[in-house]
């Protein structure tokens, strides 16, 4: 186990370094001069030159990269081109909206998807299985934008049929007013959760379906469980490693939905910020935010791999085959 973690940490470090390089190079090598892009279409050559000097774009690429990396090491992401504020502070403030949104959304997805997946796997009549399959397919086919809009029409304050939750913004005080902040996260989290739950449901069902005819279920039943109990205890426990793995990937893919939903509900999160900064061609901010997000996902991948190991003791001992 220790050896596996060491190796996986090494891979994580290499991947983070590689991704920093990729983000950096992509943003610079791609056609179009960054400084003139930042300055806008109508800027004078003098303004472009000044910008170039200000952000060190006249330096060789390697020097720029080293400068950026040394900054990153100290938690300094540079200063935003448009606002002049520290990018690290900006990223921190935005993450305090996005991470809770993801967490609540995931909780909603599990709360809906797991029971439905279990019910689908336990139902025996083909007709009922068909209904569950239809739910999973339709649920996975709704655009996040539309789902969010429908929730807004249904439950949004001021807009919806039922005045339940605020549908725009995050409240002026942020987390200083936790009730308000949480309330404004409810609709977005519900949207994200419902969209992701279809995937969770499908994975749960197929994992349980694969285990259903196995000897492990027979054994649990032979010890005195009904099929239902055996599937819900032994079956879920044994499919946990697989579910965690897929959940990690689902989480990575959830981000498009999260960004759309943040925009729709006007939440000042990482997604909204990133879109605004891309629109403003704020190179420094985009660079910092993209790097942060990729790191978040690489770390999620890392944690998922470790959890997979922990949950499946057969992998933990001596063999080092996976990854």
């Amino acid at each position, binding site marked *: 186990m220790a050896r596996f973690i060491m190796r996986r940490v090494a891979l994580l470090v290499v991947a983070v370094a590689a991704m920093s390089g990729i983000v950096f190079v992509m943003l610079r090598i791609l056609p179009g001069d960054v400084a003139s892009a930042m300055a806008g279409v109508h800027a004078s050559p003098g303004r472009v030159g000044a910008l170039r000097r200000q952000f060190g774009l006249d330096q060789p690429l390697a020097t720029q990269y080293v400068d950026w990396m040394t900054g990153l090491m100290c938690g300094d992401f540079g200063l935003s081109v448009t606002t002049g504020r520290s990018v690290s502070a900006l990223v921190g403030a935005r993450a305090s909206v996005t991470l809770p949104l993801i967490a609540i959304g995931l909780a909603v997805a599990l709360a809906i998807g797991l029971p439905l997946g279990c019910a689908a796997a336990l139902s025996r009549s083909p007709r009922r299985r068909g209904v569950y399959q239809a739910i999973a397919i339709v649920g996975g086919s709704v655009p996040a934008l539309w789902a969010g809009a429908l929730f807004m029409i249904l439950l949004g304050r001021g807009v919806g049929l039922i005045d339940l939750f605020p549908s725009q913004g995050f409240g002026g005080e942020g987390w200083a007013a936790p009730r308000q902040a949480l309330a404004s996260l409810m609709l977005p989290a519900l949207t994200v959760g419902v969209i992701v739950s279809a995937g969770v449901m499908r994975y749960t069902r197929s994992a349980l379906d694969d285990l259903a*005819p196995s000897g492990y279920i*027979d054994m649990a*039943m*032979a010890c*005195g469980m009904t099929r239902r109990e055996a599937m819900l205890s032994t079956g879920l426990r044994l499919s946990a490693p697989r579910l965690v793995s897929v959940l990690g990937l689902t989480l990575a893919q959830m981000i498009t939905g999260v960004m759309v939903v943040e925009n729709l509900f006007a939440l000042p999160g990482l997604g909204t910020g990133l879109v605004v900064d891309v629109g403003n061609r704020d190179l420094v901010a985009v660079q910092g935010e993209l790097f942060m997000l990729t790191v978040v996902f690489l770390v999620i991948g890392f944690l998922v791999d470790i959890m997979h190991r922990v949950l499946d*003791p*057969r992998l933990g*001992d001596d063999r080092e085959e996976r990854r």
Partner: protein
Amino acid sequence: MSVDISRLRVDIGRTAVVDDVTMHIGAGERVGLVGASGSGKSMIARAMLGLLPLDARASGHIRYGDDGAGDDGSDGSGLGVDALACGEETMADLRGRYVSTVFQDPATTLSPVLTALQQVTLPLRRHYRMTRGEYAERGMATLQRVGLDPMLADHLPHQLSGGQRQRVAIATAIVTSPRLLIADEPTTALDAIAQREIVDLLVGLVDESGAAMLFITHDFSVLARATRRCYVMRSGRMVEAGDTSSLLGAPQCKYTRHLVDAAERLTLHGAGATAPGADRADDVGNTRNEGADDARN
């Protein structure tokens, strides 16, 4: 506890994997059920336990009862139950308490996330209320009875050898002192020496507790050690029944002779050092059309 099976028929899809089988296991009796792979013997065990696959349909009767010989089977529970007619809850209550089973391959049945001790105490935890200490105590005692080193109690299945795993499985089956033990090819996944040890262990444990045993195998050489009376199955039908020794000595039916010959040849050629399936395939052909049973064995 005794079992009366009458006119049992199990269909999977359009094939009858068990057809018109009638058999009796008396209280405290050790009975064998022998036949080639795919002859439907496992399906009988599954029907008795209520573990038939979801796509199987069963008809007939499997009655659990007490024919007076049992010494402490008088508490009434689990008696008079018909395995094919009662609800799932009743069968679940019966399994692991009065009727328990040892499967063929412990590697694919023992939960890979439970330690030996956790596995053994599982039926206890399902059926009896005790303190945590009592569970552990009973579990450790049972592990000791099946001859497993106490040091191995906190090991997971993949850390144990095949024979050790099967001992854990047997301990799980006997921990609640069941009245009937169904051993479904418990030795097939083991090497020759472990096979003999496991059979002797099972026989010893069953006789000690006065429980009945149904011993399912395709191997007559194992059967002679474990049972006095046996039934022979072929293609889902019962073809012969009688004393194990007399069947071994003078098999009536041609098919039984095949099985006996195969067993003798295995015993002569180094006590089953060859894979049990190697010779069998030639001697007992034509049962392969019943893939349904094979797939689940």
